[in-house]
């Protein structure tokens, strides 16, 4: 199967063609932004130098190393996207970013944000931080260093960054929400099945 590669700045057409479950890769510019970064951008309206229009955002707090006057990526992987649920919709609106990458699903507010702003959410396999780091060609800039290493706004050049599994698409489909219902039903069934084997209480 041929690799599907998105290149920044990403067009609306490319984004619209994606559906949940698709596996894609990203080439171009990728920035990190997580809890405090989202708050800073949305609540304080502080704007980073790097333009995010058509861009890609990674919910991630990396380990970086300074070599001379350059930063080197040691290890970078996704963090739980749900923590950014409160601010993602507004973030997409004001930045024009097209793809948000993280770990686990996001909620209905982000789904709305993706539909209205033609954007998608995707997951990168959590914990695969060396694979991710090896796909970072260069750290081009570092902003908001006052927030500390995990929260700073790292601007990276990436090549075929992935696999990225689309979890929210522009039609409003949500891979994790769909599955959650299935998981819940299965869970009820499974727990009921083992209950009799766990009746150790004495009457």
């Amino acid at each position, binding site marked *: 199967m041929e690799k599907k590669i998105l290149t920044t700045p990403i067009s609306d057409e490319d984004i619209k063609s994606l559906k949940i*479950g698709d*596996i894609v890769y990203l080439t171009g510019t990728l920035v990190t932004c997580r809890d405090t970064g989202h708050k800073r951008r949305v609540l304080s309206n502080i704007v980073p130098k790097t333009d995010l229009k058509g861009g890609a955002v990674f919910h*991630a*707090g*990396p*380990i970086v*190393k300074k070599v001379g006057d350059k930063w080197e990526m*040691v*290890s*970078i*992987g996704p*963090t*739980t996207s*749900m923590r950014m649920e409160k601010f993602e919709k507004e973030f997409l609106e004001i930045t024009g970013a097209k793809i948000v990458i993280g*770990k*686990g*699903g996001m909620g209905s507010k982000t789904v709305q944000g993706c539909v209205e702003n033609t954007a998608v959410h995707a*997951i990168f*396999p*959590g*914990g*695969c*931080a*060396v*694979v*991710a*780091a*090896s796909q970072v060609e260069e750290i081009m800039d570092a902003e908001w260093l006052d927030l*500390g*290493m*995990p*929260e700073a706004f790292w601007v990276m050049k990436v090549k075929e960054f992935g*696999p990225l*599994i689309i979890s929210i698409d522009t039609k409003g489909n949500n*891979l*994790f929400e769909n*599955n*959650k219902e*299935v*998981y*819940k039903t*299965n*869970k009820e*069934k*499974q*727990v009921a*099945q*083992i*209950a009799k*084997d*766990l*009746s*150790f*209480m004495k009457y």
Partner: protein
Amino acid sequence: MTLEQKFVDITVKFIDLVAKVLPDDVVGVLSTLRDKETEPMAKAIYESMFENMEKAVSMNRPICQDTGVLQFFLKVGTKFPLIDKLSDMLLEATTVATNTVPLRHNAVETFIEKNTGTNTGKNVPYIEYGIVPNSDKLEMIVYMAGGGCVLPGRSMVMMPSAGYEGIADFVADTMVNWGINACPPLVVGVGIGTCVASAAKLAKKASLRPLGTKNDNAQAHIMEQQLEKALNGIGLGPQGIPGKAGCVLGVNVENMARHPSAMGAAVSFGCWAHRRGTIVFDAKLNYEILDHKNTVL
């Protein structure tokens, strides 16, 4: 070199190993799950995990960027020569390892709400002491607790009428609602005790027990097996997407006696990157590494 320097030195190297190489039992179960998995998305994730483990070694880097808050679980003999200096030495080892491994800066002082940048802070690294009378040895578990898999941990006190079924439901519920974001497949540690605190401690202990070991109480072991079967039947796969092979690396239960009218229950998770290492020192600091066979520091 003094004995203290030697201890710090070995511990720094051991932290380095734990950050970069998963324990043998965890790798074993991960391989089984990878081979059993049939869903394409889930298979792609397992491929990335194994590629990642290989690259962590070849590129000499931490497996996951979240190297957690360092936790040390000690069983220290009362005659271990360095017993009085352990806290200071572990603090030093943490500070050094933060730069040499390197580890992500993960200690945020509460209320001040500032990252210390050293992985040390009030009561961090976390050290739990167990005292062993009449011994001159030290057994130390080093664990890196990433934020993602710590997040879903829960502890509560139930009425005994809830029964062990109630605990099973509590665990499964936590798995479906929160565990899904904790980078499954997960190690599931269940603690049953007197109160929130004792149950939580036992759950942590359970999550650190090697995979494939049993609770020596026959009924508690039935609970381990049944819970594993139930959780694997949810349909959850790696990273919370659908999977056929299952979503747990293992379920361990640790228990104690309880009050007649209260039952503490807790669950503590470990992610697929379950960075646990166990090392045993004798009084001269000769050591043996238990979870990572065929490794030299």
